[in-house]
C-alpha cells in the first residue's frame, strides 16, 4: 500500500491537457443530453482493434470521462451506442434489439472504417453491411483503427464539452 501511494505521488497526473473543443453546433439530440452522455459499446463484428482504441480513449491519458462521457453496462442506461465492426449476420438482430432497448433521445456512433463502410470485409459472405445499413448513424469516426484522439473528439461533439 505504501508503494502504491508513492507511485501515485510520483506519477501525478497523466491526463494530457484538453485540446480545444471541436467547432460546430451540437445536433438536436446531443443538445438535449446537456453535457452528460452514457455510452453502451456494441461489437457488431469487429476485429477488436477499435475496442483497444476505445479502451485507450477512456484510459487515464485521454480521459474521455472528463468531457461527460461514460461507458455503462446496460443499453437501458445509455444515450449513445458506440458500434464497432462490420455488422455480421449473427449480430444484426442483437444490434437492433440493443437499439430498441435504449430510451430516447438516443444516437448511434459508428467507430472505425468497418462500421462506416465494411472496410476490408466488404462483400464477405458473413457480413450484412455497414452500421448505417441497419441503424440510423448520427456520427461516424473514420480510421482503421481510429486514434483515441479521434474517438474522444467525436464524443466531445456529442457532450459539447
Amino acid at each position: 500500500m505504501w508503494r502504491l501511494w508513492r507511485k501515485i505521488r510520483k506519477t501525478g497526473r497523466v491526463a494530457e491537457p484538453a485540446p480545444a473543443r471541436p467547432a460546430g453546433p451540437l445536433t438536436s439530440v446531443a443538445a438535449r443530453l446537456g453535457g452528460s452522455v452514457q455510452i453502451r459499446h456494441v461489437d457488431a463484428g469487429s476485429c477488436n482493434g477499435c475496442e483497444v482504441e476505445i479502451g485507450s480513449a477512456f484510459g487515464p491519458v485521454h480521459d474521455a470521462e472528463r468531457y461527460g462521457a461514460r461507458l455503462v453496462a446496460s443499453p437501458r442506461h445509455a444515450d449513445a451506442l458506440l458500434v464497432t465492426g462490420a455488422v455480421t449476420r449473427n449480430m444484426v438482430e442483437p444490434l437492433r434489439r440493443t437499439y430498441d432497448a435504449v430510451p430516447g433521445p438516443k444516437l448511434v456512433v459508428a467507430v472505425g472504417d468497418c462500421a462506416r463502410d465494411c472496410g476490408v470485409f466488404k462483400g464477405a459472405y458473413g457480413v450484412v453491411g455497414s452500421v448505417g445499413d441497419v441503424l440510423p448513424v448520427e456520427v461516424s469516426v473514420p480510421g482503421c483503427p481510429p486514434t483515441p484522439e479521434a474517438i474522444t473528439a467525436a464524443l466531445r461533439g456529442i457532450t459539447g464539452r
Partner: protein
Amino acid sequence: MNVVTPVAQVLVVAGGSPLLVGVMRQVRARLEGRAGPGVGQPWRDLRKLLRKEPITPRGTSEVFRLAPLVLAATTLVAAAASPFLATTSALDPIADLFAVVAVLTLGAVVLALAGLDTGTAFGGMGASREMTITALVEPTLLMATFALSVRVGSTNLGAITTATLHDPGRVLSPVSLLAVVALAVAVIAETGRLPVDNPSTHLELTMVHEAMILEYAGPDLALVEWASAMRLTVFLGLLATLFAPFGIAVTASPSALALAAAAFALKVTVLGVALAVAEVFLAKLRLFRVPELLAGSFLLGLLAVAASFFLA
C-alpha cells in the same frame, strides 16, 4: 414542534448527495492520474435522465415500477428522522435506532424484489447477492448502535447523540471504538462500496447493486441513482452523527442550524473522501469471502455490546 430541522435535513441530503458522489469520483479520478468530469457531473447525469423517455421492460409488474419511489421515499424518511442537524426535531420520537435501520432495509428489500421482477438472470443474481449481504449486515448495524445505546438507556438516536454531546470523552471509550469499526464495515457493505461491491463495474458477473438496476431507464433510473447517493449520505451521516456529533445544533435557531449543516457537510465529505481514497488501494473481495469480513465486523459489534456492559 420543530419542523424546520427535518425539512432542512431532507434538503441538505437530497441536494448534497449527488455532489458527494461527484466529489468521491473526482478524488478517485485524480488518484488514478485522470482529470475527472467535475463535481457536478452526477447532477448533470440526473438532469439528463429525468428528461429521457421512460421505458419499462415487457413482463414487469407494479413491483418494478414502484420500487424506485419506495427506495427514494424510505431514504428521505431516514434522512428526515435522523438527528443530523439538531437533536430537537419534530420527528424525534420516530428517530429510533430500530425504526431507522428497518426503514433503510425496506428500501434495499424493495429494490431486490424489483431485480427479481425483471426476470433476467442478472437481476435475480444481484437480488440474491444483495439479500445475502443485507442479512449479514443488518445484525451488525443493530449490534453496533445497540452498544452505544446501552449507556444512554434509550435506543433513540437523538438521545444517544445528546449524551455524546454532553460527554465527548465517550467517543474514545473502547465501546465506541469497537462499535465504530463494526459500523464502518457494515456501512461500506450496505452502500455497495469496495471491497464488497464495485460501484463502477461493467462486468455483470461481479455486480451486486448494479445488477438489480440494469433494466431501469430514464426517470426511474434517475430516482434509483439519486436514492443510492442519498443512502450513502445517510449512512455516512449516521456514522458521523453517532461517533462525532460535534457541531450538531441543540437549539433550533436558524444560525445554529446553518452552522450544523456546514459541519454535517464537512464531516460527510471527509468520510466520503476517506472512503474514495481507501477504494483506490482495495480490490473487490471474492463473494464467498464477504461473509468472513461481515462476520468479523459482527464480532466487533458483539464485543462492543459486551464491553458496554462490563466496562460501564
